[in-house]
């Protein structure tokens, strides 16, 4: 029974890794195609949105993973997500004001997701340390 649960957990991790790799691959492929080829508008739109379906799939896999967490991991994940979400908003607001005040250059906000991931890791470590 325990072996069965372990196998199920491994399968979930493998699925998450495979979908992550697929999402990463389509993101790189889409970037490369848009940079090196001139497409018509409909094809350009299709290529631009190519990475979105694998990312939506990854998103579904992640939510299923969160639902299957035990009580302690749920608490840690909740605090990490809350920290990261509010922290991201703080970074966005502060940078936006510094931009308006002329202290920092105009940035492309599409690059905000590494900040989200970084804050999630910090939030996770704080929560994990708290519940250790």
């Amino acid at each position, binding site marked *: 029974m325990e072996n069965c649960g372990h196998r199920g957990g491994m399968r979930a991790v493998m699925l998450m890794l495979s979908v992550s790799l697929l999402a990463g691959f389509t*993101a790189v492929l*889409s*970037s490369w195609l*848009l*940079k090196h080829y001139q497409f018509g508008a409909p094809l*350009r*739109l299709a*290529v*631009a*949105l*190519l*990475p*979105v379906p694998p*990312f*939506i799939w*990854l*998103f579904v896999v*992640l*939510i299923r993973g*969160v*639902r299957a967490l035990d009580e302690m991991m*749920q*608490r840690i*994940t*909740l*605090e990490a*997500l*809350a*920290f*990261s*979400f*509010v*922290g*991201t*908003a*703080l970074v*966005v*607001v*502060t*940078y*936006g*004001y*510094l*931009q*308006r*005040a*002329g*202290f920092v250059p*105009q940035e*492309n*906000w*599409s690059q*905000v*997701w590494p900040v*989200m991931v970084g804050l*999630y890791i910090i939030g996770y470590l704080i929560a994990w340390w708290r519940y250790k």
Partner: protein
Amino acid sequence: MKKTFHPLLIFSLAMAILLASVFIITWLLETQQLSAPVRLALALVPVSAWTVCLVMELRFLRRLDELQRRILLETLAIAFPSLAVAILGCEYLRKAGFISSLKPDHVLIMMVVLLLVGYVIARRRYR
């Protein structure tokens, strides 16, 4: 006995101050000619209110019961990766020349909308 305020009350108060400061500071930065130190000080005002919000939010989370915690976890588990997917989608649409670059206001609006969508979905699931 020492009276303590509920974290949700302090969180709501900090949010209200924050929202008010967003409008006032945006107006000041866009319409007034201010010196560099004043502009910098104004730009950093929301950080203090936002930090209070963050601390109160974390305290509030620790007081939630099991069901509320699950709803909030699912809300954030939906909103957080959705935001990453939405930003990624915008980035590729920009590369393809369909939209101009994202602004901080757009990211904030996306966050609020996705949080509401996540909450509605999670609420329905645990109703």
